[in-house]
């Protein structure tokens, strides 16, 4: 059984690495109630600055650490200044989105500066290894453990016992009240972001040395693992984050031992979902309590949605409907088709995230379910494509709702994290369930769209088809919002306790929102599958979920017309300006940032 000991040691070593990111995340969450999605990017920046220092400037290790910490701290201050401070009075998810936008920008900048190719980052520590069980540990392992545990302890003591630490916590709980105590909230946030970023940067460098390799993909991976570990330990709980990280390392290590490497992430996310379901506030949160009455308003930013008269909408719709009669290029139609498909996804997301308040970061999973269902129905069961697409919508509605249902008990950012994990789980299941999904090979030869036996192959017919489907979905959603369901969804969003006390079952209404939204997203995925004719587990990825969220924010949370306007803008503008593909993510990031900064309620306003 000595191999189990090895897996345990290996798990703890990896967990140790995760802890570095998780502690930084926990610190920031402790202050600003914000899950900083840019933490992974800081980590990336730290790794590359470390590379420059070590490989090009040949700095000694202590100096390297200082340089990296200082540079990363500057990045942290920038994030605080532009990602957080301006957004203090806007929608609650605005800062979260801002950090996502910042992470896009940072990752892309690093990629453009250093190219996406991996680089070696040599360790500057002596290469001695101690035998331990069947594995070895070296000085770097110890340094990583030392940094992780020391910083966790220091931060814990800081938050609990120092005056600034108290100020930090007070500000995170009630900003106005903290100011009335004389707390300069901005100063506090600056300090914390600086510290957390310095820590994040140093961790990126150490981990780069550990694997002797750095590349731009490490950012997202680090964020995901750090977030999982942090939430498992209880968001904002610094020692919890360390324990969560070790646990995560162990679970992954054992999972890999039993099932193989491609299951590593699956286990990470399953751990997260299980913990969230069983202990919604993390492993170390206190037990059952009647929820207190809110001491502060949790209201979304006051805004007056822009009212667009019906006739104007009708005119616009008619304009788009007759567009193919004008001499427009194939390229324009193609772009708009993409916009309509994204629009369907955005409709779905604006309902669950905006109206229902369940900010889903795994929405692309619904696309994937719809796409695979529709593709497989038409390929293996020869179901007519039109019906297969509807089947994709229905399966996505049913299965998606079922999969997301564990998150129904959660609130706020926990929902985002859970849906992120669920989305990853779906894509990993698609990857590993080869007998049905054909695994990494993907599905090819998916038949083209057809309706009543007529193939829709010309761009014009595809354009009309997707436009019509989107318009129908939008009209239905508009009706939904005007009904008692729209009101019930929004009531649950504002105060789920009061909603329950007035007879609204959270499971029932969250399910209904996801059923409706799942259908729209599934149909979008189904159509996409038949357009692309080839799909695999990466066709619908996290980036798409985040793009959809950007669209939703751009249009205004919960705003149906806004979702469509946002889709056209985000798909269309890069085309209009002929922006090269590698800069697009950068542009999305910048758009997102400008938007949450200057019009957090979206172009057309939150509803």
């Amino acid at each position, binding site marked *: 059984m000595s191999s189990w000991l090895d897996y345990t040691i290996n798990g703890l070593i990896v967990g140790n690495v995760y802890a570095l990111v998780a502690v930084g995340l926990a610190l920031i969450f402790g202050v600003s109630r914000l899950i900083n999605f840019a933490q992974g990017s800081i980590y990336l920046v730290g790794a590359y600055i470390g590379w420059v220092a070590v490989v090009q400037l040949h700095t000694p290790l202590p100096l390297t650490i200082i340089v990296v910490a200082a540079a990363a701290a500057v990045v942290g201050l920038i994030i605080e200044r532009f990602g957080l401070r301006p957004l203090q009075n806007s929608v609650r998810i605005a800062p979260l989105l801002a950090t996502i936008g910042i992470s896009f920008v940072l990752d892309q900048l690093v990629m453009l500066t250093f190219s996406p190719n991996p680089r070696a980052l040599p360790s500057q520590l002596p290469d001695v290894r101690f035998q331990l069980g069947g594995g070895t540990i070296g000085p770097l392992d110890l340094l990583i453990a030392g940094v992780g545990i020391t910083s966790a302890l220091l931060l814990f003591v800081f938050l609990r016992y120092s005056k600034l630490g108290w100020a930090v916590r007070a500000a995170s709980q009630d900003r106005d009240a903290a100011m009335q105590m004389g707390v300069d909230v901005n100063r506090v946030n600056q300090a914390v972001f600086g510290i957390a970023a310095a820590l994040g940067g140093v961790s990126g460098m150490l981990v780069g040395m550990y694997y002797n390799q750095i590349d731009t993909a490490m950012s997202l991976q680090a964020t995901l693992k750090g977030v999982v570990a942090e939430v498992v330990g209880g968001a904002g709980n610094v020692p919890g984050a360390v324990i969560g990280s070790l646990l995560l390392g162990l679970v992954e290590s054992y999972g890999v031992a039993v099932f193989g490497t491609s299951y590593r992430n699956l286990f990470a996310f399953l751990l997260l979902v299980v913990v969230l379901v069983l202990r919604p506030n993390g492993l170390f949160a206190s037990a059952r309590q009647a929820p207190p009455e809110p001491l502060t308003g949790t209201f979304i930013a006051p805004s007056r949605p822009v009212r667009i008269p019906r006739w104007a909408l009708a005119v616009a719709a008619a304009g788009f409907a007759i567009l193919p009669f004008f001499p427009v290029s194939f390229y324009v139609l193609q772009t708009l088709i993409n916009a309509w498909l994204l629009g369907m996804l955005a409709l779905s997301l604006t309902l669950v995230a905006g109206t229902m308040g369940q900010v889903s970061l795994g929405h692309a999973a619904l696309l994937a379910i719809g796409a695979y269902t529709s593709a497989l129905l038409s390929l293996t069961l020869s179901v007519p494509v039109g019906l297969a697409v509807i089947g994709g919508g229905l399966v996505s509605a049913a299965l998606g709702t079922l999969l997301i249902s564990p998150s129904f008990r959660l609130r706020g950012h926990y929902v985002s994290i859970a849906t992120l994990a669920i989305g990853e789980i779906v894509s990993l299941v698609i990857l590993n369930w080869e007998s049905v999904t054909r695994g990494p090979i993907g599905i090819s030869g998916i038949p083209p769209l057809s309706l009543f036996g007529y193939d829709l192959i010309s761009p014009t017919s595809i354009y009309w088809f997707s436009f019509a489907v989107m318009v129908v979905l939008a009209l239905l959603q508009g009706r939904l919002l005007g009904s008692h369901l729209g009101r019930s969804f929004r009531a649950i969003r504002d105060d789920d306790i009061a909603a329950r006390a007035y007879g*609204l079952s959270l499971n029932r209404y969250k399910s209904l929102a996801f059923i409706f939204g799942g259908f729209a997203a599934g149909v979008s995925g189904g159509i996409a599958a038949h357009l692309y004719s080839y799909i695999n587990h990466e066709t619908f990825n996290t980036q798409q979920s985040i793009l959809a969220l950007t669209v939703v924010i751009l249009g205004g949370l919960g705003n149906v017309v806004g979702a469509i306007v946002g889709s056209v803008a985000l798909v269309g503008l890069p085309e209009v300006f002929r922006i090269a593909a590698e800069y697009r993510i950068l542009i999305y990031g910048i758009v997102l940032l400008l938007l949450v900064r200057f019009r957090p309620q979206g172009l057309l306003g939150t509803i």
Partner: protein
Amino acid sequence: MAEQLHAMLSLRGLTRRFGGLTAVDAIDLDLARGELISIIGPNGAGKTTLFNLVTGLDRPDAGTVRFEGQDITGLSPERLAAEGIARTFQLGRVFGNLSVMDNVLIGAHTRLRAVKPAVPVIGPLLELGLALLRPSSVKAEEERLREEVRAILARFGERLLPRIDQPAYSLSYANRRRVEIARALALKPRLLLLDEPTAGMNPTETAEMQALVAELKAEGLTILLIEHKLEMVMRLSDRVIVMDEGKKIAEGPGEQVRTDPKVIEAYLGHGLSGAAEQESAA
């Protein structure tokens, strides 16, 4: 005994502990249909906790709650709302971004019939379908409820009606509390629990609220009231229950309780406000 037979709500040995503290300690209570009982007691006596136990927001560690003869201990709040139990919250929990109208309409949620047919299993899907199709029965129901809401808001004079389309977050504190009471009334409750309905109101406004509660009582509503404003308690209550440190220390008609030395010791004191209460009569 007669009370027990007709009791609408009866609590037996209801207990809730938080760590070492027993916030509600073996409380027995019988509330007859149409009765108004006030619960008074010093801060931290366990009054709000008792409300939470009755409305399903919290579960007792021991004891039972019976409502209309049925054991409802530990049922979910949404079930209890459907049974006709409505409450207001001490600090206020309005839906900030919903208009006053929508806030109060949520109160009527359990009374939706046309759009929410009581069909098992596929009920929710039917609800979704009906909400989308909106047949005339559904429209009529919605319209009728909106009328009712206007009538309920009219009971608060000109305080809420002119603000009917404003989001609740833009109301002043006391008006948010009024919206909450309106929301509770929209449920057409069989049992209404009011947690300090007059907090944040001056004596004149308190008198206004007192008149409203008196009206509700005259209409036959059964009410449990938590209040610190003694004059109001004395005028409205059929019986008063005094809690201290989780226990019931006195029970009976208002005047009797008021002169009970234990109550004076634990709750009333002898100072300024006793005198002021006399003055604030309406």
